[in-house]
């Protein structure tokens, strides 16, 4: 299994996505920092705490990396069906389910991993930049930083699974465009925030909703290749 994942990594030259990863992280962080610096003198809009500063960072990261995940799914699975390299793969003495499972695992781990690493990296930078830039009111201690760890992990694991939902739409017509479009819609729906000025509400805040969606993502991933052994490859 690990052997198959490694082969997928090599075959699709996954290291090239590290550049995209850094580009995403820098853009998200730059954007949020600009907002915070701009609103510093505005008493109403100023960011009150570390948590308030990190909320947009997490929302933007979730959206970005769900779409990022769909790009990887498209490359690993959808485009292999489109270009018919999947047909070549299925002439190897390896169980088809195992081949696809390796691809899904890689896509999942890569998405969840980069989401976790991205958010964690941005939190760490904030910790070092806060004293000099004053991105929000107050300070952040190292303990506070460490305390966010479990939440960051669960968030990454759930969002990684939600990122598998676009597979369902993409596999119907083996379309890369559909996969990515549906990822955009899903990511915005899940992470959208409704605010009446005082209280805010986001679907992602009610833990049960992303949890259900995450389970849905995993089931869809499973259903998309449940019958692969007995189907004609087209």
């Amino acid at each position, binding site marked *: 299994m690990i052997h198959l994942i490694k082969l997928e990594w090599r075959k699709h030259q996954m290291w090239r996505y590290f550049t995209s990863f850094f580009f995403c992280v820098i853009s998200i962080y730059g954007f949020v920092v600009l907002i915070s610096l701009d609103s510093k003198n505005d008493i109403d809009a100023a960011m009150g705490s570390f948590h308030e500063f990190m909320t947009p960072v997490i929302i933007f990261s979730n959206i970005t990396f769900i779409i990022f995940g769909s790009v990887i799914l498209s490359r690993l699975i959808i485009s292999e069906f489109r270009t018919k*390299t999947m*047909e070549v793969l299925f*002439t*190897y003495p*390896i169980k088809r389910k195992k081949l696809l499972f390796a691809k899904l695992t890689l896509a999942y781990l890569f998405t969840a991993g980069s989401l976790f690493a991205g958010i964690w990296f941005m939190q760490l930078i904030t910790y070092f930049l806060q004293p000099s830039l004053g991105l929000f009111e107050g300070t952040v201690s190292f303990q506070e930083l460490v305390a966010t760890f479990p939440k960051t992990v669960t968030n990454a694991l759930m969002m990684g699974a939600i990122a598998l939902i676009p597979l369902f739409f993409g596999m119907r017509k083996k379309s890369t465009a559909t996969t990515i479009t549906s990822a955009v819609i899903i990511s915005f729906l899940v992470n959208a925030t409704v605010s009446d000025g005082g209280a805010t509400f986001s679907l992602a805040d009610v833990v049960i909703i992303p949890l259900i969606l995450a389970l849905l993502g995993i089931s869809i991933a499973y259903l998309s290749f449940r019958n692969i*052994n*007995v189907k004609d*490859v087209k």
Partner: protein
Amino acid sequence: MNYIIQTHQLTKHYAGKPVINQVSMNIKEGEIYGFLGPNGAGKTTLMKMLLNLVKPTSGDISIQEQPIMASSYTYLKDIGSLIEYPIFYEELTAQENLKMHCAYMGYKDQNHIKKVLDIVGLQQIERKKVKEFSLGMRQRLAIGRAIVAKPKVLILDEPINGLDPIGIKEVRELLVMLKQQYKMTILISSHIVSEIESIADTIGVLNDGELMEEISMHSLRTKQQATIEMVVSDTKKAKRLLEEDFNANVQIMDARTLIIQQVHKKTSTITKHLIMHDVDVDEVETLHQSLEDYFVKMINGRDQYDSFN
């Protein structure tokens, strides 16, 4: 002789219409089986069925005496294949593509990759990305990929498409070499009949999804007796002599030309016989029917009526 691939009443329907219809074919171990048929006859579909990429509607396949089920996959380790257009990972080089193939096939000998690139004539450009390759180069690489893991069975669908005449000759020699040196069984399809004629041991003719004939080249050659064309001084007398004395089937073409069929005597004997009976023979030509004529006749014989409707 053992059969390495056998199908029994193999049928595939697409949207209710048969694409492959009750095909029972038998491929002997170590032979080159030429698969002939016009475009759209179902050659590719049948080959995909052998690789389990397309599942039969009914009928059975057995390869190396193992029945092939919908979920069978271990038997694929002994099969090298090239189906339709050669497909690769475009971003990888020729060498990387072959390495990847070996890794998936579980074949460890890395030195053999270099040797194979050499055999198919791609040693100069092994580090070039496949997306920069021409069709001919892709075809060569695809043949290389099919043989690199030393399979027992080679399934090649139109392997000479896009190759230049030198390439075609090289592939032909390569296939014969693989058969002789590595005892590979080769199933090769083509619509270019003359290419198959020179190397195949057995041919199968597929038309409209049906296997019309499966015959060894040896018995095909014996079956196709030569036709002799003669220019003589007296056609009527010659016809009578040949019919009475040799029991031949003779047709008079024009005032001086005869066509003689089904004669079991040597040409020299016939000529001598005619001259002894005062019939002058000016020209003698022996016409061999090629596989191509045979093939075209077989396909047309069936379709002639249909095509007028």
